[in-house]
């Protein structure tokens, strides 16, 4: 991917020559790629490939050893429009007995916004809208710990959507969810992408990815492949990145971006 192409105004996320070491061990080496507005990008790679670390670097939770990240054209350190980014982590570590309703969890996505004690009417509408989007409007008063795994992930997606983000970062959002729930989740993501939200998703599941995304990056410390999912098998990148033969059932379809 050429530098000039990465710097246009449609670039929402730009990793430029990122390297990262953990306890002296390099986990990411010279990774560069950009995400354009409207992209539905999948990141695949084996365990420990540095996929989640990339998200952490983008969100400022980890500092790269070298290289830089730009969010919506601004250096990560200078970026302040965090409501433009929605993030769903791989596993939300919370106590299932935590006294929070689904509505309150979704409303956490507005914690950046000022306001004393209660939400404004406009904020309440935004929360209801986000819960409607993820199909949980009828579960709003339920405690979060009472939801199924799939519903919980949708609630966290609702939290990420409530501030109406332009970019969604999803770290293995379907882990531990049954196939039926996974399918519902995928339909929802496709709808959100068609509505104009740029999505970057990390997953282990190559088949799942190929049905969903219009661009895929294969990562294991460094980028082995960046392109359309249908081209990944013939590129020979998968066995190189995974260190063994990997068979990917890819699905050739076009997305709106």
């Amino acid at each position, binding site marked *: 991917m050429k530098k000039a192409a990465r710097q246009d105004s449609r670039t929402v996320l730009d990793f430029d020559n990122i390297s990262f070491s953990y306890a002296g061990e390099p986990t990411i080496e010279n990774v560069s790629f950009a995400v354009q507005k409207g992209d539905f990008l999948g990141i695949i790679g084996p365990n420990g490939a540095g996929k989640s670390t990339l998200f*952490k670097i983008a*969100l*400022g*939770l980890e500092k790269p050893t070298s290289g830089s990240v730009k969010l919506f054209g601004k250096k990560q350190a200078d970026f*302040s429009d*965090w409501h433009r*980014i929605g*993030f769903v*982590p791989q596993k*939300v*570590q*919370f*106590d299932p*007995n*935590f*006294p*929070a*309703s689904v*509505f*309150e*969890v979704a*409303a*956490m*996505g*507005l*914690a*950046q916004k000022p*306001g*004393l*004690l209660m939400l404004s009417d406009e904020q309440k509408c935004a929360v209801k809208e986000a819960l409607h989007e993820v199909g949980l409007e009828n579960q709003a*008063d339920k*405690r979060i710990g009472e939801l199924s795994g799939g519903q919980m992930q949708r609630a966290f997606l609702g*939290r990420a959507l409530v501030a109406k983000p332009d970019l969604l970062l999803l770290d293995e959002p379907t882990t531990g969810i049954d196939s039926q729930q996974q399918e519902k989740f995928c339909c929802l993501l496709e709808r959100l992408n068609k509505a104009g939200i740029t999505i970057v998703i990390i997953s282990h599941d190559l088949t799942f990815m190929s049905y969903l995304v219009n661009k895929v990056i294969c990562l294991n410390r460094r980028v082995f492949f960046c392109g359309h999912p249908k081209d990944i098998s013939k590129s020979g990148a998968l066995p190189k990145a995974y260190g063994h033969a990997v068979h990917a059932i890819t699905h050739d379809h076009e997305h709106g971006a």
Partner: protein
Amino acid sequence: MLELFSYTFIQNAFFAGTIVAVICAVLGLFIVLRKLSFMTDGIAHASLAGIAAAIALKADVLLVTGTVAFLAALGINRIREKMKISGDAAIGLLLPVGLATGIVLLSLAHVTSVDLMSYLFGSILAITSSDLQFIVIFGAIVLVAVAVLRKQMFYIAFDEDSAKASGLPVSAINYVFFGLVGITVVLALRVAGIMLVSALMIIPPLSALQLKKDFTTTLVLSAAFGILSVWVGIIASYYLGVATGAAIALSSFALFLAASAAKRLKL
């Protein structure tokens, strides 16, 4: 029973006790949810160093103890953040240091055990007008700060990592939170004492949590349980002639048992 309220010291006790009960229960809920319950005891014990220093130097006890408790609370957060030590271990580190410093200072100042009793077990009935002023001012500061930061503190208590990822200044909010806990513990010392402070900060939120409601309702219930504990404790201590701090602690526990029973009976 109305004759009880004709005494100024009882009026002061009810007024101060109600304010302290509310701030303790509200902040206490965040403490319990963040699994830092040991923290109130840690700060209370560490504040003995402040009490000892104030007695030894003949300085204002609330002011010196407040400063020490505030610094101890911030110290716990700093150790937790910078040294990557868990919250309970950081508390365990500071607790004996504060307690030991207090004992050494008291030994050097030849303080009698009588001076200490009110700080160990509280003396809500001895609250003076200036104590009350102090409690009202700092209680209002704590409540306003919680009102401003409620959404953010709720998010951090639920899932600190996601709160950081959403761009919230989690570290700064944590320092404010721990500082508020330090102030609150000192205000609670006058009511319940070092040994019983958790009766106001931990038991009411635990009682509210038994009822399995959403966060806002739990917060209100927590404050209600705290107020009820103080009121029942003061009235019981007056009529039974027992120590007020202990009566408050026991009434708080009785309410916890009642809430647990209500949960079992699905009331």
